[in-house]
């Protein structure tokens, strides 16, 4: 079956612009996660959805970052007034409803803020 997909694969934007990054999880997975991977670092947790609600958004760096999952499937990560420091690979993962279960990762969206 299809894995986690993310679009776009690459996004180049200018400082101050607004961007949206999309994640399509594996069908039937109720849990969805966003991580951010800066150059030379491991992924860092941003937010976790269980169904439509954000169960844990403690990793969002500031109020310029926001994520939604209105129908409990596709999720969109939104970044307002982008800054050069937001440049990173944004990873999405999904899992079935259990803390024991493997998180399946998408290929990521590489965001470059000029």
């Amino acid at each position, binding site marked *: 079956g299809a894995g986690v997909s993310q679009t776009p694969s690459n996004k180049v934007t200018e400082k101050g612009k607004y961007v949206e990054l999309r994640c399509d999880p594996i069908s039937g997975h109720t849990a969805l996660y966003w*991580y951010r991977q800066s150059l030379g*670092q*491991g*992924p860092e947790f941003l937010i976790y959805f269980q169904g439509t609600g954000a169960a844990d958004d403690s990793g969002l760096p500031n109020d310029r970052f926001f994520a939604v999952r209105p129908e409990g499937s596709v999720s969109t990560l939104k970044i307002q007034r982008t800054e050069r420091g937001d440049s990173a690979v944004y990873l999405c993962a999904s899992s079935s409803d259990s803390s024991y279960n493997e998180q399946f*990762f998408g290929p990521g969206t590489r965001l470059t803020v000029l």
Partner: protein
Amino acid sequence: AQSVTQLDSQVPVFEEAPVELRCNYSSSVSVYLFWYVQYPNQGLQLLLKYLSGSTLVESINGFEAEFNKSQTSFHLRKPSVHISDTAEYFCAVKRDSSYKLIFGSGTRLLVRP
């Protein structure tokens, strides 16, 4: 807060040599441990995991890792590496009460012929 340390940023080895990638985590009452692999231009893939039971866990492609509670370590080993093992390897930990993974900074394994 939970943390994961991968001391080696890059490990170069010759093909068919053994390798060990080190991972240490900060102590916690109950944790689950994972190794993920990221091949060039691909997404993260789960290599192996420790949830409970036997402290030695194995992957299908010859890697193994041993959970050592007293040393708070989860080192990854392979007795004989292949060129195709060249990749970035990430150790990760998750608390029993949490869903989020805490990753180390990664170790790049470079296998040379």
